[in-house]
């Protein structure tokens, strides 16, 4: 069916409806400028976003670096403690004793006099402490008696035995000396190669020598002392014989016939660190390096004190000018 033609609705007067004005012509330059401005704004926003992302990334890197460094330090310290606690090195609990090499022992007991003379006092001055109360000379079988008290664990005893053996060998001879090593743990200086004086025999026509190694390398009781000798040690390894700065009961303790007392090592124990018996004996025989000089020097000092005790016998030892000079420097009551 044919439709009647539609009429456009009539505008009512006062309805506010107006006729649309004709569209202004589009300016292509303005459009392009607007688009460019929009693009620039978008690019700037993207750049700002990228810069912010970069800043955040840099901050993150810095934080990782800083907290990582702090954490690393904590980890290292914790690691050291864990290793210490869980992997405690197996302590060498062996006796540390072995048969002495006669050649090495021969070097120590026979240091050339020319070397000892050249070394002189060795640049050291051991503390010869005068026995308090001016007691009579300690003797045994009519001979001046030297008493040594030490322990096989003790590094300072290990240090002192070398010059003691060297000095005493000029007045007599040893039998039964063994190689020994001081303890490997619990001491500041460890595993010092030395000799054991436990059970040794000392033969001399000038001196009597009584050594006691009271404990072995693992702190177990070794040589027992008589009541008399215990009293002797308690009396002189103590104040007022020892200076107030020194701890009573210190070992090594050497009573030189109740005239002088040596307490502790007379020279630097660190010089023996890491050296075996042959190396130490060679140093003593040469008397040129610090170890050789101090070891030989201590031996000379002890020799001088022994000469004083024996009435300068034997003359072959005690008339040596080096020894007489040192003897004159020993303290007197």
């Amino acid at each position, binding site marked *: 069916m044919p439709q009647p033609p539609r009429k456009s609705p009539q505008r009512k007067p006062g309805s506010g409806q107006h006729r649309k004005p004709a569209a202004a012509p589009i300016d292509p330059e303005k459009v392009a400028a607007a688009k460019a401005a929009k693009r620039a704004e978008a690019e700037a926003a993207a750049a700002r976003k990228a810069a912010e992302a970069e*800043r955040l990334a840099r*901050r993150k890197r*810095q*934080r990782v670096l*800083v907290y990582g*460094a*702090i954490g690393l*330090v904590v980890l*290292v*310290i914790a690691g*050291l*403690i864990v290793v*210490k606690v869980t992997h405690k090195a197996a302590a060498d609990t062996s006796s540390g004793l072995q048969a002495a090499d006669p050649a090495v022992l021969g070097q120590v007991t026979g240091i050339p006099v020319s070397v000892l003379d050249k070394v002189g006092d060795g640049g050291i001055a051991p503390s010869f402490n005068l026995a308090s109360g001016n007691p009579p000379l300690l003797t045994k079988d009519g001979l001046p008696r030297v008493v040594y008290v030490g322990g096989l664990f003790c590094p300072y005893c290990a240090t002192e035995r070398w010059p003691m053996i060297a000095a005493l060998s000029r007045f007599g001879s040893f039998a039964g000396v063994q190689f020994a090593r001081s303890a490997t*743990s*619990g001491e*500041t*200086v460890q595993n010092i190669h030395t000799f054991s004086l436990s059970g040794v025999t000392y033969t001399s026509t000038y001196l009597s020598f009584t050594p006691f190694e009271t404990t072995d390398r693992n702190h177990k009781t070794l040589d027992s002392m008589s009541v008399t000798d215990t009293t002797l040690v308690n009396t002189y390894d103590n104040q007022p014989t020892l200076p107030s*700065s020194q701890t009573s009961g210190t070992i090594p303790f050497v009573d030189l016939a109740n005239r002088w007392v040596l307490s502790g090592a007379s020279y630097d124990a*660190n010089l023996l660190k890491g050296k075996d018996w042959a190396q130490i004996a060679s140093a003593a025989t040469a008397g040129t390096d610090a170890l050789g000089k101090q070891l030989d020097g201590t031996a000379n000092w002890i020799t001088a004190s022994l000469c004083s005790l024996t009435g300068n016998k034997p003359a072959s030892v005690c008339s040596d000018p080096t020894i007489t000079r040192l003897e004159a420097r020993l303290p007197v009551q």
Partner: protein
Amino acid sequence: MSPRWVRVAAPLLCLAGIGVAAYLTIAHYNAKVILACPETGLVNCAKVTESPQSVILGVPVALLGLLFFVAIAPLHLPAAWRSKSALVRRARVVGAVGGILMVLYLVYTELFTLDALCLWCTAVHGITFLLFAVTLVGTMQTAETQPT
């Protein structure tokens, strides 16, 4: 601007470090001053402070510690933390890193060479570690607050 907590904590740590290191130094040079320290098993101050390792190139470690804190203290004053000088900032970080490396060496020596720990030395080590942490975090936070 550096955070306020850093400007307070860092000088206090330096002060504490100087105090403890001075005590250890006095005890090293004066035999009459004995460190108040128990001797129980691993803890043994005398064993550490009287060991050969307590001296480096003839200088007691205790004195080195004191010199360290005295040297870095000016770098940790509030004014130094406010400073924008890159030299001051770098010197502070280098000092902190040097201090902590020394601490690691000393802790290793105590544990594995001497088999003993000194409580007062451990206190110095702890202070050095805290100063190291404060320095790094403080430097980082200061950088974050500065305009890029």
